[in-house]
């Protein structure tokens, strides 16, 4: 079905499914089929921040004092974070927007992606401060085998969905041969690809990001690279919200609260969804191997990081109705909670009481006492 940027037919978005219904026409938010996405948009916008607000100048001094293995951990971690946000800054838009049918979900995806671009900009902010020319770091992201292996797994499901959607939009359902390869395109196949893609995004937001956060905050625990940690704290708060959104989408499908066919697919592809999670866990453990290849740092080593991956995977898998395959009972990195607690994220004082801080606010409450000293 051809995509149209403004669907001329009148559609009732309250009865559309989240994906693969009619294209959205009017961007209206007064009514929502799934009000959670409207709430997520509002929350995310209230989190707005700019990398330049955070002073990272002290980090340069700290960085010079790090040992070589620590420098390797810090920079590799930053490269990985840059990769993750490079993917997330564009992929949800390109993969999901053409097939979304609800205005609130469409805007949520746009808002989500936009915040990932803020994250990408903050990596440049951090690196520009550490190196007079950060080109080597950025250039290595596309040639470093350890990072490339992750990148291909992260982008695979997106690319698959995007390609299938393009075929469907231009050639319709059927069997199509492109460059000698045969592709079967029908609604069911497209929806399966969407389901797997959403699971892969969920695993990315649920596990991959948290491994990188743990590395950043391990430095902050030693009072090192604190500017960087302040930025990552803001990023972690956003990612928490993004994770909530993918968990909502997966659960809405699985509980049959949206497209009944998606509920069937969720059941049918449960093993594949689990496999995506297990794969992410295995890859993150491999990554820990690479990070600590030259030596550990105080407070964090390969074993603890691997335990944390398992601990966080148990929680994230339970959240989407999967089993908890790992035997880790307590949090191996309890201090992580101090950094993920949104109360500890520094905000401008006038904004800490959000409800009372409104631009151009007018006091509309008038009590009778206000006229007590008023005489005619």
């Amino acid at each position, binding site marked *: 079905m051809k995509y149209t940027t403004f669907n001329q037919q009148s559609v009732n978005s309250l009865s559309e499914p989240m994906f693969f219904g009619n294209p959205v026409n009017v961007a209206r938010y007064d009514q929502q089929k799934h009000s959670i996405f409207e709430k997520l948009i509002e*929350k995310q916008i209230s989190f707005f921040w700019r990398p330049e607000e955070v002073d990272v100048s002290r980090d340069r001094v700290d960085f010079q004092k790090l040992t070589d293995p620590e420098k390797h951990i810090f920079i590799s971690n930053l490269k990985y974070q840059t990769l993750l946000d490079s993917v997330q800054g564009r992929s949800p838009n390109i993969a999901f927007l053409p097939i979304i049918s609800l205005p609130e979900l469409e805007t949520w995806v746009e808002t989500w992606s936009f915040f990932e671009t803020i994250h990408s900009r903050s990596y440049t902010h951090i690196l520009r401060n550490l190196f007079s020319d950060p080109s080597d770091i950025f250039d290595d992201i596309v040639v470093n085998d350890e990072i490339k292996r992750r990148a291909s797994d992260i982008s695979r499901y997106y690319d698959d969905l995007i390609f299938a959607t393009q075929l469907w939009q231009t050639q319709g359902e059927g069997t199509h041969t492109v460059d000698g390869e045969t592709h079967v395109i029908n609604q069911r196949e497209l929806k399966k690809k969407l389901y797997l893609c959403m699971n892969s995004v969920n695993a990315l937001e649920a596990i991959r990001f948290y491994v990188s956060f743990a590395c950043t905050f391990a430095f902050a625990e030693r009072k090192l690279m604190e500017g960087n940690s302040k930025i990552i704290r803001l990023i972690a708060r956003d990612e928490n919200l993004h994770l909530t959104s993918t968990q909502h989408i997966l659960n809405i499908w699985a509980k049959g609260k949206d497209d009944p066919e998606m509920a069937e697919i969720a059941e049918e592809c449960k093993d594949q969804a689990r496999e995506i999670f297990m794969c992410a866990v295995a890859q993150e453990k491999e990554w820990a191997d690479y990070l600590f290849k030259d030596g550990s740092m105080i407070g964090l080593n390969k074993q603890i990081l691997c335990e944390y991956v398992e601990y966080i995977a148990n*929680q994230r898998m339970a959240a989407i109705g999967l089993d908890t395959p790992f035997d880790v009972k307590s949090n191996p990195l309890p201090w992580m909670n101090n950094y993920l607690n949104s*109360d500890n994220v520094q905000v401008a004082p006038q904004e800490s009481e959000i409800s009372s801080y409104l631009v151009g606010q007018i006091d509309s409450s008038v009590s009778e006492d206000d006229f007590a000293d008023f005489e005619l």
Partner: protein
Amino acid sequence: MSNSDERFHIDIVDVGPVSASTDKTLLETIEAHNIDVHFHCREGFCGACRTKLLCGKVSYTTDPLAYIDDDEILPCCCIPTSALKIDIPR
């Protein structure tokens, strides 16, 4: 609103009973009793503290954004309004 002196009996599966006041969130009460509980954001949007509510009622201090099932609650942003029976995942 609720009287801050009011206390409710909270029965936590596999842990035991605790007493909760209504001027604290359920998460704060659980922590005050040194019971291990997961949390991240403490604001209802991450879902790390998701807990099964087996019996009783709670009211939310902020609208919970994280996904919770019909039989689940987010202790970080709710206060008990009756005696509760909960099961904290571990």
